[in-house]
């Protein structure tokens, strides 16, 4: 049992950190522009596919740097030539733009790379078990993923909270006009933030690609859970996104690991023993409902605390 708990904790934290890499950019962009960027998970997918292609051409390590930079540049272009032009037409137009972009990216990716999963391998340098606990190997690559995520988290926090750049970004989030009057180019700040957010998503894609599946529906399968993370954590709050990512990562992993159903909670008074049309419902295990747990959390948090865990405003 202890083994299961330790391994599940590691897996949960890892999945959580991956979610954080994605949600950190999304939550900052959200509070900056006031719209959900539906294409955010698509940048993650682009990162994975660029990572795969560049790994073939120039190797994994250069790809780890180049792919996020490329995707970051694409993100900046989207902000500069797409979102900035639609901004004057209101939030709905911006929302629709990102929505359409998500579909366009998915179609383009499947046109170029096909719809089947790609053979994106873990680099040979990291393809060994890092350590063995209770006879279970823990792959070095997963430790590497964890390390990258933690480094990014710390770096983001320092930049946003301890530097002048962070000060301006934070000010621009809440008082863009005032920042503009003080002589800063708010448009450029937004563009840079959008670029960095996209690059982070791409970085997550490059490192998650070999560990999970790299295929053209990966954005669609991860997108919804990202929205859960940022709403759960509180819009625009980095620490909130961090906590929410970890919570959701752990909840999903442990929900799979736990056996037990509603019926077994009653012990000897097991209601499913009696004849009932509800027998199926009683016997659904926690593992089976694992995929919907995050969405239940979303509903509960919206009812109980609409601004999210660490959010500061209601909308």
């Amino acid at each position, binding site marked *: 049992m202890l*083994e299961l708990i330790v391994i599940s904790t590691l897996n949960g934290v890892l999945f959580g950190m991956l979610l954080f890499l994605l949600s950190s950019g999304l939550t900052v962009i959200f509070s900056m522009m006031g719209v959900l960027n539906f294409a955010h998970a698509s940048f993650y997918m682009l990162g994975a596919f660029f990572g795969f292609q560049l790994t073939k051409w120039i190797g994994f390590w250069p790809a780890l740097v180049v792919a996020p930079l490329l995707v970051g540049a694409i993100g900046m272009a989207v902000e500069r030539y797409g979102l900035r032009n639609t901004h004057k037409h209101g939030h709905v137009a911006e929302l629709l733009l990102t929505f359409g972009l998500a579909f366009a990216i998915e179609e383009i990716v499947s046109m170029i790379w096909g719809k089947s999963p790609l053979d994106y391998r873990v680099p040979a340098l990291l393809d060994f078990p890092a350590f063995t606990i209770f006879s279970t190997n823990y*792959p070095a690559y997963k430790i590497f993923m964890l390390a990258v995520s933690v480094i990014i988290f710390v770096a983001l926090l320092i930049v946003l909270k301890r530097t002048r750049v962070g000060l301006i970004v934070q000010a621009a989030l809440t008082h863009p006009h005032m920042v503009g009057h003080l002589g800063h180019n708010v448009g450029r700040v937004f563009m840079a933030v959008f670029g960095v957010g996209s690059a982070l998503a791409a970085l997550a894609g490059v490192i998650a690609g070999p560990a999970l599946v790299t295929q053209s529906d990966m954005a669609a399968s991860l997108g919804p859970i990202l929205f859960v993370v940022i709403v759960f954590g509180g819009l625009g709050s980095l620490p909130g996104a961090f906590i929410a990512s970890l919570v959701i990562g752990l909840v999903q992993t442990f929900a799979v690991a736990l056996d037990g159903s509603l019926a077994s909670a009653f012990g000897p008074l097991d209601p499913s023993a009696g004849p009932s049309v509800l027998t199926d419902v009683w016997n659904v295990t926690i593992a089976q409902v694992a995929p919907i747990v995050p969405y239940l959390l979303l509903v509960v948090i919206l009812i109980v605390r609409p601004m999210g865990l660490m959010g500061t405003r209601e909308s």
Partner: protein
Amino acid sequence: MRKLTLAIAVIVPMLGHAASAEDSLKIGYIDPLSGGGASVGEGGLKTFQYLADELNVKGGILGHKIEIVPLDNKTNPQESLVQAQKAIDAGVHYITQGNGSSVGAALSDFVTKNNSRNPGKEVLYFNYAAVDPSLTNEKCSYWHFRWDASSDIKMEALTNYMKDTASIKKVYLINQDYSFGQSVRTDARKMLGAKRPDIQIVGDELHPLLKVTDFSPYIAKIKASGADSVVTGNWGQDFALLLKAAADAGLKVNWYTYYAGGAGGPTAIKQTGLDGQVFQITEGFANSGNKAAMDYEKAFRAKVNLSLWYPRAVNEMRMFKAAAEKANSIDPVKVAAALEDLKFDVLDGGQGIMRKDDHQFLQPIYISSFGKLTESEPFDEESTGWGWHLVSRIDTPQAMVSTTCKMARP
């Protein structure tokens, strides 16, 4: 003059197209071509296109050219019905599908209703891989024909083999949460319980179909259970990712599977280094030892650049031709009647029969294991250098289970 040339240039190709469309025999291929099942669906499509080309070179079926119409159902029953209707509206009288028994059940029902409502415009459903037993038992239909061995036939053969393997003590079941996965788990529980009551079932897991991207939580659970063998009906990415996670965690167990040979599976097995510890049960495989089948495999690989994952598709198309020739018609009603109790020499050798009672094709089946190859086994999988190795061949009479089908005949 120029106008006339232009008119000819425009009209002639149209005439040609209209003529060939009328003559051709269209088969609607309804399977996933996007999403988690895409890799499997695309492989199937290439196989059917190869088979159609092969038959067309020899004049098609009764002079009709075969045309495969690909329709993407995204592994979704609802979407499949939309696609089936689309196919019927386009003049298709034969549909074929394989991936997903939930889809199979919906299609069988749809075709049955369609045929009772539109006499004279019947449609046949050729099922090449949806193996839920209910399709040839309580939900059986006259208009449905299945070429793959049903899940309970496979489990019967698999448990017969497992029964004699004394080292199996603790078994873990992990399956996809839909009709087929559930039938694998119930059959495994029932048959193992009857044949080897001493075997302990230490885990029984159902997970969402084609949605899980990281199986490491499940692998941690299998590891914790102390299982020495895992039985799984997982296919497509659900198998490849399961094995990938097992490789990462260093889980060393024997795997008894239905679909380990599917896309991505062999690569994942090679990564785990489980030489000879992953078993699959199929109606044929590359290194079966049958000369004709192996020649066929060679030609198929050279042209399609895939291994022949569906010997049953070969049987299906060849039997379709045989039945049409026997009936001397491509009218679905006559073909259906001709298929009943039709005996046929299958690709990998031996005789099979399309049982009249439930339209289940009964055929020899094979258990094979994946690992290093010997001299006489020329075919590896996915360039791993490893391939399938014969473990046991079960002849048709031993690969049967009875049916409860009470078929409503037209």
